[in-house]
């Protein structure tokens, strides 16, 4: 068995003067403190990448900087799915006895460390270097293509997508660490600057500075335990040109595998932490995972289903869309928030019952998927 024994998260937004290593260290220290562990207890380190400070050996760079000599360490790169992929690996390392306490960490000064153009340009490189990138697509354009086709197939409108941005902003308004605290409306989203149609500025996550970390352990260190019940991945393609048909989404494959691995059903889930790089990403993943019927997710948002007091509270910290997106750490914030909810520490955001949480991460252009179930044990 494996447990998430500690979590750490910095505020997202501007951290002027902080390097990627600074943000990683801050989050890592918070996770260690939360777990009640010391540096010497950590025998495994997994870390994400930094587009601002790329390094071929970031995990050992971090280990040296932070002051740990682990028996297992390396970086992991699966785009937006990296955080959950590292958690899945940590789970297996702990379960198989390779390590006792694995520190999973990521952080990046993506907002203040480079220009927005540089960020957009760096991320567009997930496209094919010969057959896509020369055409000048951006990450929003890759997802704009997917949005265009999904909306056409299932009758989803731009106003429907806007609901997800409004919901994530409403949640962010209740979290002091979120990058954005001004409430927005569907009309605001519709009137925001076009980026890659049908996606407008408020359909897109921001670029942020921030860091996040967790400790995955073979035994509980606190009173309330959060156990990794099981997880699974699916990788269907890299480039949107090579993506499978709308009927064969990777998220459907990975969630089916995760359900099989755990014996859990979607009806068991009480809290959802779902990747939301764009409004379309969140809408599609909710429907792929079975948290809403096809084309029905927006109606559920309007009905309050995904709110703090709804039947399926979702990303109560504000998600990538409004808590912010600092790269790998961005989606790790979803897990930190799930952990706070499951352990009853989410303050004014606390939901009634977060006994079982479903987490899902997506990397590339719906290319790489990780689904994970967490369970509270007392």
């Amino acid at each position, binding site marked *: 068995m494996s447990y998430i024994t500690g979590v750490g998260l910095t505020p997202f937004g501007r951290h002027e003067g902080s390097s990627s290593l600074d943000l990683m260290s801050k989050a890592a220290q918070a996770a260690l403190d939360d777990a009640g562990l010391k540096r010497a207890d950590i025998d495994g380190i997994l870390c994400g990448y930094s587009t601002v400070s790329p390094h071929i050996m970031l995990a050992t760079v971090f280990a040296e900087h932070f002051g740990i000599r682990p028996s297992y360490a390396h970086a992991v790169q699966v785009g937006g799915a990296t955080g959950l992929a590292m958690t899945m690996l940590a789970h297996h390392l702990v379960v198989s006895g390779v390590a006792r306490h694995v520190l999973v960490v990521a952080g990046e000064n993506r907002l203040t460390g480079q220009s927005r153009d540089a960020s957009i340009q760096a991320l567009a490189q997930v496209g094919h270097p010969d057959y896509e990138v020369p055409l000048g697509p951006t990450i929003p354009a890759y997802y704009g293509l997917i949005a265009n086709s999904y909306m056409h197939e299932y009758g989803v409108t731009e106003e429907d997508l806007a609901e997800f941005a409004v919901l994530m902003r409403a949640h962010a308004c209740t979290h002091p660490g979120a990058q954005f605290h001004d409430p927005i409306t569907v009309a605001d989203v519709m009137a925001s600057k076009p980026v890659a149609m049908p996606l407008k500025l408020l359909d897109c996550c921001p670029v942020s500075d921030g860091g996040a970390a967790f400790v995955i352990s073979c035994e509980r260190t606190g009173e309330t335990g959060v156990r990794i019940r099981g997880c699974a991945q699916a990788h269907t393609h890299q480039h949107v*040109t090579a993506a499978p048909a709308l009927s064969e989404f990777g998220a459907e494959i990975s969630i089916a595998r995760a359900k099989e691995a755990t014996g859990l059903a979607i009806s068991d889930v009480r809290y959802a932490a779902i990747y939301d790089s764009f409004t379309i990403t969140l809408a599609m993943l909710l429907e792929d995972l079975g948290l809403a019927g096809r084309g029905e997710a927006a109606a559920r948002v309007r009905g309050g289903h995904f709110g703090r007091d709804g039947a399926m509270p979702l990303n109560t910290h504000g998600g990538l869309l409004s808590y912010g997106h600092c790269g790998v750490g961005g989606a790790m914030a979803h897990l930190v928030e799930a952990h706070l909810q499951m352990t009853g520490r989410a303050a004014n955001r606390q939901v009634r019952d977060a006994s079982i949480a479903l987490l899902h991460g997506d990397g590339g252009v719906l290319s790489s998927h990780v689904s994970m179930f967490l369970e509270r044990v007392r």
Partner: protein
Amino acid sequence: MSEHLGDWTKGEQAIIYQTCTSCGHVQYFHRAFCAACGTSDPLEQRASGEGRVYATSLVCRAATPETRAHVPYNIVLVDCAEGFRMMAHGENNLGIGDEVTASFAPFAGKLVPFFTRRK
């Protein structure tokens, strides 16, 4: 080794695709083998340039000075008549399902496939 034809990615005004000589799998990204069955040397052919729009996204925010000069430009995915999907540029008013035909247009210092509605 079959002849390697030049396409738009190499500066030629052509769209090239590959067909596996063993299993018949059609692929657009050039490889020395069939990605479905592994057979070497898939047959390279020039595509007709005819197809149907699968999806579009009008880019209004570009990230480099060279691409910004073209904003807005329409990124399209086209299902080509020969059975492969490709990314290209297209007329700004193209919609899903439109029958289109390819020509080539300058973009950021290169000629790229540009689809227009079939007359």
